[in-house]
């Protein structure tokens, strides 16, 4: 699955624990988290494909006639106290 590396770059430095304390991740840990996030998002049949991990939220945005193999967008978001703000987005191809 492509896109994990880019997602790991977004995640690094912003992940935090449930008390809001920064969670420093090594590049390898960030990569593992990104891979796990993408796996979970796309193995689910739930709609919308959305999950929270390490204080961040990830949302997959699929084109209308999406099927396995076609590209999708994944947004990484952080709660700023009032709304979920996008930290960045990556194009994922499965």
């Amino acid at each position, binding site marked *: 699955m492509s896109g994990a590396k880019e997602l790991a770059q977004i995640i690094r430095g912003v992940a935090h624990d449930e008390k809001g304390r920064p969670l420093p991740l090594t590049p390898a840990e960030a990569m593992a988290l990104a891979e796990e996030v993408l796996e979970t998002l796309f193995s689910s049949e739930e*709609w*919308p*494909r*959305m999950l929270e991990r390490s204080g961040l939220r990830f*949302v997959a*945005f699929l084109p*209308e006639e999406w099927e396995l193999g076609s590209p999708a967008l994944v947004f990484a978001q952080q709660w700023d106290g*009032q*709304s979920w703000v996008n930290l960045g987005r990556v194009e994922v191809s499965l």
Partner: protein
Amino acid sequence: MAITVTMADYRTAEKSWWCPGCGDFGVLSALQKTLVDLQRLPHEVAIIAGIGCSGKIGNYINCYNIHTTHGRTLPVATGIKLANRDLTVIAAGGDGDGYAIGMGHFMHALRRNVDMTYLVMDNHVYGLTKGQVSPTSDAGFITSSTPQGNLEKPVRPLELALASGVGFVAQGFSGWVPQLIEILKAAIEYRGFALVNVISPCVTYNKVNTYDYYREALTKVEDIPGYDEKDRLGALKTVMEREGLVTGILYREEGPALEDLLPGFREEPIVSQDLRFRQEDLKALLEEHR
């Protein structure tokens, strides 16, 4: 040859403006599928949309669409239905649009009973204006306009509707599209005013009323033993006891719509009648008042 309506007929080329994961996507696809299942032709359907993220639904569905001013979907929809009773009229908007600025129209539309469907995308927040408290927000809900938490009690649209005497009251959830399709089909086919309140999570400004929360909290009426959609008092009791966290057709009672009772309201829609005023009619009228 009969024309077959497909999903493609109800799509538009407009790129969606909604946030990824917004509940309104579920409502849009449920509505499109409903209209296809009912085999309504796009020119037979009018969506009268309010102002809000939810109000954009009309841009994404290929049929007649008016984007009205904030809170005014119901009076506009009423006018359209009375002028052309052949149209399937669907008023659609948000909880702010319908239950704040539009509340006066809502209460009167419920008792007036014109044949239309009112689809409210209820996300308990003002989405379009970036996350202020709405009339259906939970007590204690923190937003930019309620930094200390909402001090007011929420409006209860289902209870208001049941108490008003309206004949069709339902609630759906964007996360449960198949159920929502069945509700919308029944609402559109119902003769009279049909309220469909849809719990449609705002994934950007509401961290409390989320999909996960609703999947846990909601009960479908078909899973409540002995639930009877013809029992208004029973419906009210269920809704009150469960604090509105139920989905399905809560109440349905067949009866005439306002149009069926209006004296002189002709079968043929006004739009296809000859409205020219003839000279001899004018003369006769003047004679009468001489």
